[in-house]
C-alpha cells in the first residue's frame, strides 16, 4: 500500500534520513522503532509532505506522492497523529474532532463522533473545553480521536502512547488493533517497543537515518541486537 524507496530527507544541511526503504502492506500494522534522533518522526513527516524529500520516492496505492502538498496527501486517505500532539488549543474539543473530519463529505460523521466518545469518554465530558487546557494525556486521546475522525486508509501514529496512563496505554494498543481489524492500515512509531512489536505484523528498526533491520515482528523481537538495544536485554512477551 505504501512504498518508501531510497528516501533521503533532512532539515537544511542536517541529513536526518540517509536512505530509507519501508513497505507497508495493505491491512497490516507496521512498527518503526529506533533510538531518539534516529529519524522516525522525519520519516512520518516526509510521507505527509511536511518535510521535502531530497531524493527517493514515496508511493501510496501505486500513486507517487513524493513532495505532494499536505492536504492532498490527507485527501488520498493518510492521516498522521503527530508527535507532541498538535492540538488546536484555541478550539474546543468538539471543534478539534470536527476538524478531523474536515475532508469528509459523507453523513456518518456523527456516528463516528459517537464512536470516538465511546472510546474516550473523557472527551465527551470535556466537549466544550478548549483543547489547550486539557491535560497532556487528554490531549493525546484527542489527537488520536481526531485522526480517527478522518477515517483514513492509512493511519500514521507517532508515539501515540506517550504520556498516557498505563490503563489507557493498554487501551490504545487495543484501539489500534481494533481499527486495524476494521480495515485501516497502520504505520506505528513507538518507544513502547515491547507493545509495538507485539501488535505489529512487521517491524523496521532505524538507526541514524537508515533502516538497519526489518522483517516479521516475531523475528525482530527475537533478534539479539534489538533485545540489547531497545529492550534492555529482556525478551518481548
Amino acid at each position, binding site marked *: 500500500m505504501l512504498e518508501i524507496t531510497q528516501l533521503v530527507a533532512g532539515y537544511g544541511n542536517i541529513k536526518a534520513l540517509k536512505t530509507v526503504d519501508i513497505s507497508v502492506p495493505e491491512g497490516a500494522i507496521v512498527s518503526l522503532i529506533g533510538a531518539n534522533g534516529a529519524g522516525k518522526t522525519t520519516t512520518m513527516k516526509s510521507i505527509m509532505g*511536511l518535510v521535502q524529500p531530497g531524493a527517493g520516492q514515496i508511493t501510496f496505492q501505486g500513486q507517487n506522492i513524493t513532495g505532494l*502538498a499536505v492536504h492532498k496527501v*490527507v485527501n488520498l486517505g493518510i492521516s498522521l497523529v*503527530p508527535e507532541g500532539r498538535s492540538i488546536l488549543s*484555541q*478550539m474546543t474539543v468538539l471543534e478539534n474532532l470536527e476538524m478531523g473530519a*474536515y475532508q469528509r463529505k459523507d453523513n456518518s460523521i456523527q456516528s463516528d463522533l459517537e464512536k470516538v466518545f465511546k472510546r474516550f469518554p473523557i472527551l465527551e465530558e470535556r466537549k466544550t473545553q*478548549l483543547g489547550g*487546557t486539557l491535560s497532556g494525556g487528554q490531549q493525546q486521546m484527542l489527537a488520536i480521536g481526531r485522526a480517527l475522525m478522518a477515517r483514513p486508509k492509512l493511519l500514521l501514529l507517532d508515539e501515540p502512547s506517550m504520556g498516557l496512563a498505563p490503563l489507557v496505554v493498554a487501551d490504545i494498543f487495543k484501539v489500534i488493533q481494533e481499527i486495524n481489524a476494521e480495515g485501516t492500515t497502520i504505520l506505528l512509531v513507538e518507544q513502547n517497543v515491547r507493545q509495538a512489536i507485539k501488535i505489529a505484523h512487521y517491524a523496521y528498526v532505524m538507526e541514524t537515518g537508515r533502516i538497519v533491520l526489518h522483517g516479521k515482528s516475531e523475528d525482530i523481537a527475537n533478534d539479539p541486537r534489538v533485545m540489547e538495544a531497545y529492550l534492555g536485554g529482556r525478551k518481548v512477551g
Partner: protein
Amino acid sequence: MFLQQVVNGLTLGSTYAVIALGYTLIFGVLNIVNMAHGEIFMIGAFVGLMLVTKFNIGIIGALIGAMITGAALGYLLERVALRPLRRKEVSHLAPLLSTIGVSIFLESLALKVFGPQAQSFPTVYSGQLLDLGVFKISFIQIIILAISFGLMFALRFWLAKTKAGKSIRATAENIETAGLLGVDTRKVIVMTVMLASGLGAVAGVLVGLAFNAVEPTMGITMGFKGLAVLILGGLGNITGAMVGGLILGIAEVFSVAYGDSSYRDAVAFGLIMVLLFVRPQGLFGSSTPQGGR
C-alpha cells in the same frame, strides 16, 4: 448636541471598525499585521471614485469594482509579500517589513497616478441629511453603520460556525496541524487575504463618501487608527474590532465635544494604553491558557 455627537462618534467609530475588521481577519489567520491594509483601503477609495467620476458607473458598481480591485491587490500582496516569507523559518517581523514596503509602494503609486490632491465624490452620493429632530444623520452614515454591524455579525457567524471559518481558525493557530487535517492552508490564506482586502477596499469607498475626501495618504492615517482598534478590541477578535472601533470613535468625538480638541489624539491613545495596562490582551482578547505545560 449630545445625541448628535454620539452619532458623530458612532459614524467615525464604525469607519475605524470596518478597517480594523480587515486587519483582524488577516491577523486571525496569519498572525501578522498587514501594514499595507490601509493602502489597499485607499486604492479602493480611488478606484471607486474613478469609476464614479470618470466612467459614470453608479455607486453600487463602484463598490463592486473597488471590491474586485481590493481582492486582486490582496492576491498580489499574498503572492509577493507574504507567501515567500512563509517558506522559511522567518522572524515574525519580516512580514511587517514587507507589508510596510508594499504600503510605501502603493502610496507613492497612488500619488503618481491620482495626484496628491484630496478628491471627493460628487455630492449626489453623500446625500441629504435626514433630520430626525434630536440629531441629523446622513444616508451614508446609516449605510456605514449598517454595513459594519452587518459585517461583524456575518464574519462572526462565518468564522464560528462554518466549515470554511473553522478551517481559517485552524490555519491561524497552526498551519502544520491544519494541513495535517486536510485543510488546503495555502488556499485558505489566499482567500482570507483577498476577502480582507476586498472588504478594506469597500471600506475605502464608504469612508471616502462619508468624509468627502480621497487622497493618497488616507491609508496611513486611517490605518494607524485601525491598528489601535485592532489591539484595543483584542487581536483577531471580530467583536473586539467592532466594539473597539466604536469606543475609539466616541472617545475621540467626546474629547473634542466636552474636552479640548487639541488633546484628541492623546485622549484616544491614552485610553488605549490605560485599557491595555488593565487588560493586556485587549477588551475581547483571550490570554493564552497554556501557562505551565
